[in-house]
């Protein structure tokens, strides 16, 4: 096939090529012959806290390195010492993405230009880039409170953690999928970069360039100070605090404008966390780590809806979903701070007890464990209340296939939002989890904690809509857990004992939630419960991408998809459908019985009836609210705070990756030398000719007056 640019370009110049490109014909510009852009890459970005920076950084004009596909740990000596063409861009299979290899490359980082990790579709046996002791400095255990329990002295919660997510690398690390692009890269490596029989590979070599320059440096106080420098009309921000919104809802509504302590109000809080993270930016699935917990809590809230309308319990039940818990308890610390400072509808003295749902990936027949804080239980009132809560929980498992057991040894609470409540005040509380001591989750806070980790499998011949409705075994187990939680909450809130056995969670709702949160968020049920203006967040990057679940990284944009989904789901599952029109739904205060202060009114899309194309939208009235989940450190301006989360994410201009061939330095210098030689020669020759022009060109028949 003839290529345009090979022909002498002065005949068909750039303007023709430009027109060619405009008319949608494949554009053979020179740049396309040199570079191949890599589109399906995910970078690792820089995060900062009060004292450190973690993550990866590239130089501002990208880092270029000769590709080397690592075959084993011993092969690492080629890029690190033996290879003749440093710096190298090391391509790793996920089985080699270990702490020892990454640390070795970090130490020799002048020979390593960057790392690309190929993430396969199947998970390795175990992998957790998180630390072994999550959130150890912002929990309740410290030198003042249970010092022998602090810093995981008794129980190491995440023993498989290799801490890679919290290391700092000064080269870029990108992740690639196992697809055609990666095959092309490996083929390029095999064609050009292989050393034949021990001799150095010949130029040109296949190289990769990664751009992920981060603007923030050092730590959060430094980058927040730099944010405030006002040199121009558009000040350059370098970092943003992590944060989003917490979702909370209650059985009996609260007036949203009356804050502070409420007399004679006793509340049982049921909590779960919403977010998770992974080593690479934004790619976090958190199936066992967070989704199992909040789906259970949503199902329990739905199970309680009917019985609390018929026979309301004496105490109120408040369902709280916290965002940002992975990063030193952003959401729960903010809620506790608001309660302490009278900025929330209740305060800490109104809390009767707390039940938190942790990681509950239960399989049928296994037991669940009830973790409590031994230090606060030394107080008898708290201890009695905790025993009461344990009783309520254990008696709720009647007729179900598992038991709720308290751990044998006296061990601290696992990392959980309850720890932040305990930091403020001793409150009786239980954390429900599937692990007795160390986590069972083999992929805690990694990109492998996905649907497969929960054994969420569907028969292969089902369409997406059929998969949505199919009740999986995982859903059945989680439904049982939700039933237990709902019954225990009802009893804990002082409800009518005889009605407890009627409380049952709905497996259909649970399985639909699991499908939507772990397989594909763009399904008909999620579309039906969402608001029309938010329906685009369910499908990322347009409609033609294959189905994907939402990302659970808390982020900085305050527009995280899981938060919105949980808000609308909680509203639909605990609230009531009304007959209000859309305009009435936006201004409900004009109607006599409706009040925006007591409830929130959400206009949702509704389902599409079988015989029409228009959606049956309606107005939902629910006592579901969003509260800001940004760390109190940023409200107070204490960027070096040791008490609150100070995590920020750096900003960047662009992130991209591309591969190309590089020529040898000798050839480049030769080109330059030839160019300079040609220039000098032509200058000399021209000088010679121009000074002797009248002699050289003198044999002319023109008159002698011709001027040269």
């Amino acid at each position: 096939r003839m290529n345009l640019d090979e022909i002498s370009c002065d005949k068909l110049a750039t303007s023709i090529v430009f027109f060619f490109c405009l008319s949608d014909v494949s554009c053979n510009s020179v740049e396309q012959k040199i570079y191949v852009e890599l589109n399906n890459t995910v970078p690792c970005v820089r995060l900062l806290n009060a004292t450190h920076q973690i993550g990866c950084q590239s130089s501002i004009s990208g880092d270029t390195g000769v590709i080397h596909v690592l075959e084993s740990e011993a092969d690492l000596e080629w890029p690190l010492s033996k290879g003749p063409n440093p710096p190298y861009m090391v391509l790793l299979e996920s089985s080699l993405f270990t702490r020892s290899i990454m640390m070795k490359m970090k130490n020799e980082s002048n020979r390593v230009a960057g790392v690309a990790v190929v993430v396969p579709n199947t998970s390795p046996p175990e992998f957790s880039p998180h630390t072994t002791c999550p959130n150890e400095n912002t929990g309740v255990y410290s030198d003042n409170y249970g010092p022998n329990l602090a810093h995981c002295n008794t129980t190491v919660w995440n023993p498989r953690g290799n801490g890679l997510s919290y290391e700092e690398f000064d080269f870029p690390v990108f992740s690639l999928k196992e697809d055609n692009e990666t095959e092309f890269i490996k083929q390029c490596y095999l064609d050009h970069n292989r050393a034949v029989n021990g001799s150095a590979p010949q130029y040109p070599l296949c190289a990769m360039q990664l751009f992920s320059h981060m603007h923030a440096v050092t730590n959060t106080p430094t980058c927040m100070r730099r944010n405030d420098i006002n040199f121009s009309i558009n000040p350059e921000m370098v970092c943003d605090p992590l944060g989003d919104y917490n979702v909370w809802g209650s059985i009996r509504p609260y007036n949203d404008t009356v804050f502070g302590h409420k007399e004679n109000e006793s509340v049982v809080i049921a909590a779960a966390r919403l977010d998770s993270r992974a080593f690479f930016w934004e790619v976090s699935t958190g199936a066992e780590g967070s989704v199992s917990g909040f789906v259970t809590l949503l199902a329990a809230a739905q199970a309680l809806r009917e019985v609390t309308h018929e026979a309301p319990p004496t105490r109120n039940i408040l369902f709280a979903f916290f965002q940002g818990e992975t990063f030193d308890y952003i959401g729960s610390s903010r809620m506790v701070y608001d309660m302490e400072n009278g900025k929330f509808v209740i305060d800490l003295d109104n809390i009767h007890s707390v039940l938190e749902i942790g990681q509950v990936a239960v399989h049928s027949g296994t037991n669940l464990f009830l973790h409590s804080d031994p230090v606060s239980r030394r107080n008898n009132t708290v201890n009695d209340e905790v025993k009461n809560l344990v009783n309520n929980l254990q008696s709720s498992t009647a007729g179900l296939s598992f038991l709720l057991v308290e751990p044998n040894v006296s061990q601290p609470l696992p990392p959980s939002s309850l720890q932040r409540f305990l930091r403020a005040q001793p409150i009786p509380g239980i954390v429900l989890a599937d692990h007795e001591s160390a986590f069972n989750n083999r992929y805690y806070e990694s990109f492998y904690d996905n649907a497969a980790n929960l054994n969420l499998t569907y028969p292969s011949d089902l369409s997406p809509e059929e998969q949505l409705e199919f009740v999986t075994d995982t859903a059945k187990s989680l439904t049982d857990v939700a039933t237990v939680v709902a019954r225990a909450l009802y009893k804990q809130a002082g409800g009518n004992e005889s009605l407890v056995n009627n409380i049952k969670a709905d497996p259909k709702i649970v399985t639909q939630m699991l499908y939507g949160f772990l397989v594909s968020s763009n399904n008909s049920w999620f579309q039906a419960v969402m608001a029309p203006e938010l329906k685009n967040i369910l499908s990322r990057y347009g409609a033609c991408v294959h189905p994907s679940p939402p990302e659970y990284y808390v982020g900085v944009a305050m527009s995280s998809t899981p938060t919105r989904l949980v808000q609308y789901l909680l509203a639909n599952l605990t609230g009531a459908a009304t007959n209000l029109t859309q305009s009435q739904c936006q201004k409900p205060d004009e109607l006599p019985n409706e009040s925006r202060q007591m409830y929130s009114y959400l206009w949702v899309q509704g389902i599409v009836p079988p015989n029409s194309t228009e959606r049956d939208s309606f107005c939902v009235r629910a006592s579901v609210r969003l509260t800001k989940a940004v760390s109190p450190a940023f409200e107070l301006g204490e960027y070096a705070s040791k008490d609150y989360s100070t995590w920020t994410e750096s900003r960047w201009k662009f992130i991209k990756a591309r591969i190309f061939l590089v020529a040898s330095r000798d050839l480049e210098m030769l080109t330059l030398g030839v160019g300079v030689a040609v220039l000098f020669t032509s200058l000399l020759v021209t000088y010679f000719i121009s000074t002797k022009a009248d002699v050289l060109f003198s044999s002319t028949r023109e008159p002698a007056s011709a001027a040269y």
Partner: protein
Amino acid sequence: MTASVFFGCTFIAFGPAIALFLFTIARDPLRVIFLIAGAFFWLCSLLLSSLVWFITVQISNKESSSQQKGLLIFGVVLSVLLQETFRFGYYKLLKKANEGLLMLSAEETMPISIRQLAYVSGLGFGFMSGAFSMVNILADSVGPGTIGIHGDSQHYFLSSAFMTMAIILLHMFWGVVFFDSCEKQHWWSLAVVVISHLLVSCLTFQNPQYVGSLVPTYIIVFLVGLWAFFCSGGSLRNLKLCLTCKDKDFLLANHRPR
């Protein structure tokens, strides 16, 4: 391929042209004006030929590659013919301008001879043609990568630079020969210029066998250069005189001022 390749290719492609400009044209404003006008005429010819090309490509069958190849050859030939036509048009314009200049100027003689105009206009054509050939290639040569990941030859930048140098020199020589033959009404030498231009352009269809296109091109450069040298009044005797540094005596003997 980094800055060294960028500067190397720039110097290779534009070295002779820059040298000629610096030493022979830059001091005389009239020559600069005619150089730029010549460049503009070449640009007009390119615009016209690209317009025709664009229209024919739009109405053609984009899928058929043999048709596209045929269109390419057609485009090349059309472009060459249009360039030579515009060169002829520039010649006519300059003849008219010369009469006007003579009327305006205070001296009796013309400030610039038609032979100088031929050289300047040819160089103008060459500058613009070289710019359009090389500039986008130079822009891409600055980056860290070189051509080849899809299997193309590595020597693209270097051979483009040499080709561009050849084209610039050729345009200059063709200008001289063209104007000379128009003056002397030697239509056959005009035809030879057009045919050699066509030949050089069609030689580029040999790429990526760069040897096959560059070597004959440089042979043609040498031959046309010789022809232009003789057209513009050079001779072997003059060359020998210059080279053996006997020119001073020659000038004294002929009472010719330096």
